[in-house]
Structures are given as structure tokens and as C-alpha cells.
């Protein structure tokens, strides 16, 4: 069993507070991804869990055992570093067996564990080589192998894919997902890449400036972001934001007047809003359509269109000087400067109040 509990964790470097009170529960066998922009504290959080940084306050518990001040070696955790951090003077085999040797395991046991890890990661032909003779992807697998061999309670990954080229990154992502299923282990993974977060995670933790913004499954966070930050962070291309004012509200819907004057009515729980409140409407590219200018009250002109073959992403400037991104099918063609109309799928839109928090949708409350 490997349940990790983090209570009110704080970490400061001198005067600067990096982690401002983190509370988190991680269950056995979960693949948890810490994601966020540079400087949000995700690596610091991971390193504090690992024991490589001394915390300033709070507690970390692993299966009810307090590990907050324990040395890394005593925590039963293994870490895969961004730069792999292999021992350059040891062979692949020695790299993987080092920890077991330090723990004074029997030679046979070591040999078997290393062989097993090498098998899983397809490292058998490389066992006697030194790190400098390996490619980036191979080194990374050795780094993972070094962790596997220890059979730790939790695996920690610090941006392991960022040093790989694009194609290799995709491949390794799949291998990591497979690894998670094969080993059935708890994994904590740090990345700034939201694609990795969406694809690998059972649970995503979005961090911003030392605080947790939201925790949930990837699709949960995608469909129901708790605030503007999370909404804008997940999803590629980013959600478009349209500022506006509340003009009318009733029990289950809110009418918003956008800067251009157009009004949209969204299903939303209106308890905390009042007439005239400043709000922001958030809409994802796949929830807008380009239509004839005559068919919609929201109009604008086409800026740049990027055609990827499978989709075309149109960057649009509305008459109210707002920018929107629209996803259209791959065969959609339009010219720079064309006048167009836009139709929003109001059921899928999001509403954010003045503080940036999401306004709840009544239709989801039941679910």
C-alpha cells in the first residue's frame, strides 16, 4: 500500500515562499501529475516529497508514517531526474544495482531484480555499457530501471521527457503509461506540458505560484475548470476569454453582454451574481463554429488560419476587438480579412466571475 498524504506543506527559500500550504491526498496506484507554469513550485513540491529539500512547515505522511524530516534514503521512494543523473563511472548494471548494494542485499537477489527490470525496459543488451555510450532515450530507461529495481512505494518523475526530441517523447509517454499498468505502482509525475498531464494522469494537480488551483481527473479539469487559470492552462489551443457584463439573470441562466454588444445566454447558477457584475465567458475552440455573418449576432473578421490537415484553427478578431480561436474541420478554407459570423455552443461555455472563479452550471449539479 502506498498512500501519500501532504498536510499544509510550506517551503521557503530564504525570504521567498515557494510552497504556500499544500494539502493533497494521493491514493495507492494512482498516477498523479503535478502540472503548472514555470516557477509554480511543482518541482519543489516533488523534491520536498523526495527529501531532497528541507520543508519549512507542514507534514508528509506515507501510509501513516511521518516522513517529513527523514533522509531520502529512508523514505522508500525512488526518483527519476530530468537529466537522468546516471553514475557516469558505473556500467548500466551497476547503476541499477547500486541502491541494492548499499542496502546490502544478497548478490543473487540483486542479479535477479536487475535482470527483471532490464527485461521490462528492454535494456538487456546494454547492461555492460557506460552511460556515455547510450542515447538519450536509453539513458532515460536506465534511470527508470534504477528506480524500478528498488521496488519503492512511490515513483517520482521530475520532467523526465523534457530532454528528449519530439518523436521520442511521444514514444516514451506511451511506454510510461504501459509501465504504470504493468507495475501497478503509485507514481507522481511533474511536467509543464499539459499534453502529458492529460494523457498520463489518473489525477491532475494544477499548481500556480505555490498553491493548488485544482485537483481532479484530466477530463474533469478539462470540462469543469474551477477557475480561469485552470481553464486557460489545460487544452490546446487555449480557451478563448470574452469579457462582459451581466444584463439579466434568472434561476438557471445568465445573460451576458459582451464588449461588442452581442448578448449570449448561458446556463449557469446565478446565486452569487447580480445585475451589472463583471464576468468572463470562456469558450474552447471546438465549441465555436464559423458561420455566415448574417447568421449570427457575434461577428468579426478572420485573422490567421492554421491548417493542420486534420483540423484548421482559425484565429478570429471580433468586432469588439476580442480574439477567439475556432477549430474547424481540416477542409475549411477562409481568407485573411474575410468577414465571418461566430456561433457559440452555449451549453459548453464557461462563465467566470470577477475573481476568476467558475460559476457553476445547474445541469452538472445533478451528476
Amino acid at each position: 500500500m502506498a498512500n501519500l498524504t501532504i498536510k499544509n506543506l510550506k517551503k521557503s527559500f530564504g525570504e521567498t515562499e515557494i510552497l504556500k500550504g499544500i494539502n493533497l491526498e494521493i491514493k495507492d496506484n494512482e498516477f498523479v501529475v503535478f502540472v503548472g507554469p514555470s516557477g509554480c513550485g511543482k518541482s519543489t513540491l516533488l523534491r520536498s516529497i523526495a527529501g531532497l529539500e528541507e520543508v519549512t512547515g507542514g507534514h508528509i505522511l506515507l501510509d501513516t508514517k511521518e516522513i517529513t524530516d527523514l533522509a531520502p534514503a529512508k523514505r522508500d521512494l525512488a526518483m527519476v531526474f530530468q537529466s537522468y543523473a546516471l553514475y557516469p563511472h558505473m556500467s548500466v548494471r551497476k547503476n541499477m544495482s547500486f541502491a541494492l548494494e548499499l542496502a546490502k542485499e544478497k548478490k543473487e537477489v540483486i542479479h535477479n531484480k536487475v535482470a527483471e527490470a532490464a527485461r521490462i525496459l528492454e535494456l538487456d543488451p546494454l547492461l555492460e555499457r557506460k552511460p556515455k555510450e547510450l542515447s538519450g532515450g536509453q539513458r532515460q530507461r536506465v534511470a527508470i530501471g534504477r528506480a524500478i529495481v528498488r521496488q519503492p512505494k512511490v515513483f517520482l518523475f521530475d520532467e523526465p521527457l523534457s530532454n528528449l526530441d519530439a518523436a521520442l517523447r511521444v514514444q516514451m509517454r506511451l511506454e510510461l503509461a504501459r509501465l504504470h499498468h504493468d507495475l501497478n505502482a503509485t507514481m507522481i509525475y511533474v511536467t509543464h506540458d499539459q499534453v502529458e498531464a492529460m494523457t498520463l494522469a489518473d489525477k491532475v494537480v494544477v499548481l500556480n505560484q505555490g498553491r493548488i488551483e485544482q485537483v481532479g481527473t484530466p477530463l474533469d479539469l478539462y470540462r469543469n475548470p474551477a477557475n480561469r487559470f485552470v481553464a486557460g492552462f489545460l487544452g490546446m489551443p487555449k480557451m478563448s476569454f470574452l469579457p462582459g457584463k451581466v444584463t439579466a439573470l434568472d434561476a438557471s441562466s445568465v445573460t451576458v453582454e459582451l464588449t461588442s454588444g452581442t448578448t449570449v445566454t448561458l446556463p449557469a447558477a446565478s446565486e452569487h451574481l447580480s445585475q451589472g457584475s463583471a464576468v468572463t465567458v470562456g469558450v474552447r475552440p471546438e465549441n465555436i463554429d464559423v458561420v455566415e455573418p448574417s447568421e449570427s449576432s457575434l461577428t468579426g473578421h478572420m485573422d490567421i488560419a492554421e491548417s493542420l490537415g486534420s483540423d484548421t484553427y482559425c484565429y478570429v478578431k471580433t468586432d469588439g476587438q476580442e480574439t477567439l480561436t475556432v477549430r474547424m474541420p481540416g477542409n475549411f478554407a477562409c481568407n485573411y480579412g474575410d468577414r465571418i459570423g461566430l456561433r457559440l455552443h452555449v451549453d459548453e461555455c464557461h462563465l467566470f466571475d470577477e475573481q476568476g472563479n467558475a460559476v457553476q452550471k445547474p445541469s452538472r449539479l445533478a451528476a
Partner: protein
Amino acid sequence: MKTTALNAGPASSAAEPKQDSRQGSIRKTSRINRFMVSPSVLVLALWMVIPLSMTIYFSVIRYNLLYPGDNEFVGLENFQFFVTDFGFMAGMSNTLLLVGSVLLITVVLGVLISLLVNQAFWGRGIVRILLISPFFIMPTVNALIWKNLLLHPVSGVFAAIWKFFGATPIDWFSEFPLFSIIMIVSWQWLPFAILLLMTALQSLDQEQQEAARLDGAGPWALFFHLTLPHLARPIAVVVMIETIFLLSIFAEIFTTTGGGPGYETTNLAYLIYSQALLQFDVGLASAGGLIAVVLANIAAFFLVRLIGKSLTEKQ
């Protein structure tokens, strides 16, 4: 519905957090890490403070090993004696002459030779080895080899060369004692300058040189406008470091001339040595020692600033 972190987990109040405090706490290791410097700092601090403070003390009392017990406070009397002793002027001027000449010779020749060796030619590795060798010779060996095998007026190599050209050989240590010392010391330190400058030249920007050549710069222009400025800093380093060490030249004088004839080859270091260990006047020698320390510190001040800069601009 916001999914947030659970606040009340099963582990919060019920179970006592078990702490493995016996071994491996991070706080303990980080304290150890920070204190690993302490022994060295302590030892060096003692090394600096104790002898130096003793020197300061001795310099203001009367202390002669031949008359123990006669130690009264005499203020700056020792300094006065030291400075007015006619050995002092000679000592100071010899020190400055020695340091200045060696610096000049080693830097100028160092630049020229390192430029010479900078390009690839057959056997360059061996040439390098030959050039840096004198630096590793013991100073006492150095002195005696030069005094006897090379500069000896009868059987020395220089004498043979002089005779070959029909001139009368020079008795170097009698006629040019200080210059002889300068020759010996320069020979020993030239490799140092060559080594540092050679290394610095290797980091010369090739592209810059090529661009300049395309622009029509000839070898002289290249040297003055590109190479020399690039070498400015290593030359400064060479000068500073050599100065520190040259101020205390001792062994060569000790082994060859013993400071003489008269005071002609006595530098400050040798003067103090002779006061202390030959005339047993500790008070006087300490005063002199302090003066030497002050001189060295002035040079050191600039060196530390230079190093400090290069230490802080990493890479």
C-alpha cells in the same frame, strides 16, 4: 462541482506520526554539510592569527635572543631602526629591482614565446614540455646549477661561449650579483608565464581573427588589437601572482650569494632572515616582517579583487 483535496484524511489525528529519528534526518545532514568547512577554516584562521599577532607583539618590544629577558616595550623603535639601517634601503631597492626585472622579462618573453608556440608545428607537445620544465626544478638546485655549471667564470658554459667568441668571460656573481639572481629567478618563472599565456591563447576567438583578416588586418594589427587585449587579463594574473611570490624570494639568494657582496643581493626577505636568525634580533626582524606583510597585502588586495571577479563570473 469542484473536486478538491480532502482535508480530513485518515492519518490526520488518529495515528501518531512515527518518526525514524535514529538515523538519517535531513536536518542533521544539512547541518553536517555546512560544518564540513569548519576544520579548514579553523586551522587557517589559527595559522593566520597566531603567528601574525606574535609578530606584531615582537615588533614593538625589544627582543634579542642573545639577551633574553630584556623585553620592554619600545613602541616604534624597531621600525625606526629597521628603516634607517642602511641594509634597509638596499633591501627595498633590491626587492623592487628583482621583482620588477623578473616581471618584465617573464611577461615580455612569455608573451613572445607563447605566441610562437601557439601555432601547430612538428613536435609541439615536446616543445611545450621542454618550455615548462624549469618551473618544476627545486629552487636550490636551480641556483646551484646556474652558479656552478653555467655561470662559473672558468668552467661554466657561459664562460666557454664567451671564450668561443674571443671575449673574456664574466665572473657573474662578482660583477653582476643582482643580475645573476635575476637571471636565475627569471629562468625559473618564465615557464609559469608561458604556461598561463599559452593556455589563455588557446581560448582566443578564431572567428574574430578570421573576420579581422578578411577586413584586411595584418599580423601586427591582429596582435595589437585582438591578441593583446585578450591577453590583458592573463598577464595581469601572471603579474599579480608572480609579485606575491617574488617578494619573498629566498632560497636562491641563500644558496648562492648569502645576500652579498655587502648588501648587493639582499632583498627584504633575506634581510629579515639575517636579522632574525643570524643576528638574533627578533624585535627588529619582526618589524621588518610586518613591513613585508604590508607590501604583500597591497599586491594581494588587487589580486583578490581580480580573482573575486573571475570567481563570481562563472563560466
